[in-house]
């Protein structure tokens, strides 16, 4: 690639996952990758934020500080989001949705910190989709009992395969949506910095606003929203 494009492409575009440490487990070759490092950094950041807020809360007497206001605003708006789309059913899901939203939004925005976003790795988004799938089916069986299975044969019995595929496709479409959106932004920014690195000063910031800020926030919101909609569809009306 460097030969054909001349001066502009002197640096290889870098948007791939890199393996850092190789190790063997049960005869299987496994890698610790940049994704693990990014997730670790994000978890540490969130933990530090939580601990600092907790420390500020416990010695708050009288007037609440700035940090407490920010944290209260965040918790309140997350609770409102869950309440708005799930109603009374949402009481038990506030923790899960809140954690999911915080993790996703910090992951998607971590491209701004120079990390490779962990959500641009299918190995991260598929487990998130599978957790949601487990919650959907658990609630389906918990509230609908045998109806969870007879529902698959409605409205006509021979539609069973299509209904089954419709249920199984949920985690894949959820995880591919998040993965594809974040990865496309990462690839485009990687190509830009790789191919145009001599002229890439300051103006790529405009593209970062769209690909990282806008797209990342929208996708975190959409993932949480769809999780709530799918779970709520299996629960009785509140």
């Amino acid at each position: 690639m460097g030969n054909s494009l001349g001066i502009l492409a002197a640096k290889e575009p870098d948007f791939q996952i890199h393996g850092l440490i190789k190790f063997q487990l049960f005869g299987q070759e496994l890698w610790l990758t940049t994704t693990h490092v990014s997730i670790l950094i994000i978890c540490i950041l969130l933990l530090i934020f939580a601990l600092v807020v907790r420390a500020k809360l416990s010695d708050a007497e009288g007037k609440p500080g700035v940090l407490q206001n920010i944290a209260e605003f965040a918790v309140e708006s997350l609770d409102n989001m869950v309440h708005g789309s799930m109603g009374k059913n949402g009481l038990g899901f506030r923790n899960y949705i809140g954690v999911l939203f915080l993790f996703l939004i910090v992951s998607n925005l971590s491209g701004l910190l120079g990390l490779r976003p962990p959500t641009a790795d299918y190995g991260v988004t598929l487990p998130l989709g599978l957790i949601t799938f487990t919650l959907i089916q658990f609630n389906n069986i918990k509230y609908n009992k045998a109806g969870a299975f007879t529902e698959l044969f409605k409205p006509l019995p021979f539609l069973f395969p299509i209904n089954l595929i419709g249920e199984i496709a949920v985690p894949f479409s959820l995880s591919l949506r998040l993965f594809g959106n974040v990865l496309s932004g990462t690839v485009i920014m990687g190509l830009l910095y790789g191919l145009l690195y001599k002229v890439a000063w300051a103006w790529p910031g405009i593209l970062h606003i769209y690909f990282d800020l806008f797209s990342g926030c929208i996708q975190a919101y959409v993932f949480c929203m769809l999780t709530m909609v799918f779970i709520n569809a299996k629960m009785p009306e509140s």
Partner: protein
Amino acid sequence: MNISNEGLILACSAIGAGLAMIAGIGPGVGQGIAAGHGASAVGRNPGARSDVTSTMLLGQAVAETTGLYSLVIALILLFANPLLGKL
């Protein structure tokens, strides 16, 4: 001109990846229609602005899925080509 087997597969995969991205037309049209109807809904009932916006974004995200499937196929063809292993 001699073309090696790998070269042929890589060239055809690049063309296939480009063709796969034609699917991007569909979500573009669909999202545009959704945004247009969202705008007219806000124009008719400005009080429901936040509800209309969140519903529109949700619908657009679902409509985007087909385009993303084609993106994933294009990326697989370019970076994790399964056909090269069949040589």
